[in-house]
């Protein structure tokens, strides 16, 4: 029986491989096609776009659309491109990512290594936060920001994203720290280290894999967010996602596809950058703890 199965698999292996790789290549092409079209279109001139084929390679490469998207394109009434919005996005995304990651790490530390009565219930309650849609919290959040005096400010947007991200970051760190032996904390307590010393000197140095996962996740979420950005940010300090929308939907004048494409790529670049730089840790972090290190 086993003999038979082996003989069959040896013969069918090459064919099976072919099918698998064929499918993978097909799917990869399918996914890369839009990016290809965006890239080529963004370096074409408008005449060529009107005349040519959507998937054709550009005959001459020009970066005029890129500089226009960055510096002079009109988003609504304002014609200074995306650069202001790019830095506006950075100004709230970076602090929101850092703060939500740090608080998540701290929450995870407390919920796993300093369990108290009801800590599991608290964690479950926090988990529910992962399932609440953005739209549900818009009104109560607007009211809260009003009370706090943070409406239409960058700190307000940071606050919104930190609060919304905490459920996820806490989940990440909690599940990572579950595999940390409690005895390590006991040993540190006997060595004389206190609550915060143990966190800073022992637990946080253990955490780079999960910090990377958390940063990738939070950065992508917050950078790509549109709804909170459009609702809770003031006019000129609008995030890049909102500006991109305005740029593409501006109805006056000629439709400049090359500028739209360049702007979209500019808006997507930071998340791509984060993936490329930290991506190799991503998978490692997601499976961390499953293998004895």
């Amino acid at each position, binding site marked *: 029986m086993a003999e038979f199965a082996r003989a069959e698999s040896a013969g069918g292996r090459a064919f099976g491989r072919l099918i698998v790789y064929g499918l993978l290549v097909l799917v990869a092409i399918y996914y890369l096609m839009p990016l290809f079209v965006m890239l080529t279109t963004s370096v074409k001139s408008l005449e060529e776009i009107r005349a040519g084929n959507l998937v054709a390679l550009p005959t001459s490469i020009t970066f005029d659309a890129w500089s226009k998207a960055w510096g002079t394109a009109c988003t609504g009434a304002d014609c200074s491109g995306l650069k202001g919005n790019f830095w506006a996005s950075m100004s709230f995304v970076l602090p929101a990512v850092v703060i939500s990651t740090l608080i998540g790490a701290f929450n995870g530390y407390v919920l796993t290594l300093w369990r108290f009565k009801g800590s599991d219930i608290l964690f479950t309650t926090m988990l529910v936060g992962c399932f609440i849609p953005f739209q549900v919290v818009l009104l109560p959040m607007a009211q809260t920001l009003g009370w706090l005096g943070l409406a239409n400010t960058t700190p307000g947007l940071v606050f919104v994203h930190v609060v919304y991200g905490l459920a996820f970051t806490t989940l990440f760190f909690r599940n990572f720290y579950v595999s940390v032996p409690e005895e390590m904390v*006991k040993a540190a307590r006997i060595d004389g280290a206190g609550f915060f010393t143990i966190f800073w000197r022992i637990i946080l140095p253990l955490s780079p894999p999960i910090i990377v996962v958390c940063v990738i996740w939070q950065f992508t979420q917050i950078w790509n967010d549109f709804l909170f950005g459009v609702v809770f940010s003031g006019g000129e300090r609008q995030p890049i996602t909102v500006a991109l929308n305005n740029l593409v939907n501006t109805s006056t004048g000629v439709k400049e596809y090359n500028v739209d494409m360049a702007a979209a790529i500019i808006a997507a670049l930071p998340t791509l950058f984060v993936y490329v730089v930290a991506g190799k840790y991503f998978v490692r972090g997601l499976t961390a703890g499953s293998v004895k290190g």
Partner: protein
Amino acid sequence: MGALSIRNVVKRYGSVTILKSINLEVRDGEFVILVGPSGCGKSTLLNMIAGLDTVSEGEIAIGGRVVNNLPPKDRDIAMVFQSYALYPTMNVRENILFGLRIRKATAQEMEGALARVAKTLQMEHLLDRKPSQLSGGQRQRVAMGRALARDPALFLFDEPLSNLDAKLRVDMRTEIKLLHDRVKTTIVYVTHDQIEAMTLGDRIVVMKEGEVRQVGTPQEVYDDPADLFVAGFIGSPSMNFIRCTVESRNGRLGVSLHDGAGTFFVPAPPSITGLGERAGKEVILGIRPEQITDKDPYAGANPHSIEQSARIEVVQPTGPDTLVLIRLNGTPVTCRVHPGASPKASQTMGLSFDLSKLVFFDPQTEKRIR
């Protein structure tokens, strides 16, 4: 300075009582083992001594100072854990010195401690490695080094050898014993392994279900168990327990055993006066495997032994001894015979029963009958 007193200590979790009034005095420099099956409360007791768990009732004193309300770091203790619990991001040197650094020791003190510890445990060459680059035995040694560095009044060991393989465990056992001889610090050592308990301890504390069943030197606990549980828990292979009825023959009290072929009378040592009032009643006879051996043709007549043939059911050679299973009163009984006797299963073999160390237990209370 390193004496430990545990007085009427109780531990409760909600309505569940884990430890029921524990009393224990450990002298300075003594090596005491807490041993018992899992769930007997030995680790809880150790955690309470360490200050990692609170005391519900009673008092714990280290070096004459009541420490109930002191945090672990102020109790002048050090602890070695089963999982080693080394700090994975620090190298061996940093692991050993972490406690001193937290306590803001001077560079000179730290250097001295490191040199002393590294020399004691012979690990000068490991100091710059990370825990992940060490073998299990080396990790355990680093964990002990971390405990040694602060030169505490009391060492606590929580099943430190359970994660090691069998051979390494024997080596580390010797190393811990040598270490204790060198540093002479009081040690409280938790294990579920009765061999570790026997070989390491000055005194053994046998625990079960949150109670101390017996405290004594390894030999006392082995030869003179307080009850059925201790008798069965200490010793490997464990003591044989045979249900039988007390009777009187020719003016001597004893019990009758039958091995399927016939019945023979086993007289009890006369010192066990408690049997007198139990004539005709059921008791449990305890006899260790090494007390039933093959006949030694060169030994003179031993007044404390009787000889009896029995049918062999199973033969288990262990190398130095061969274990032989016979059946007495319907119970399988392990005997330890010389391998030279080369017994075979289903043969009949002449066995010599050493009666001087027979013990008897009450089947209801499971206490020793003395």
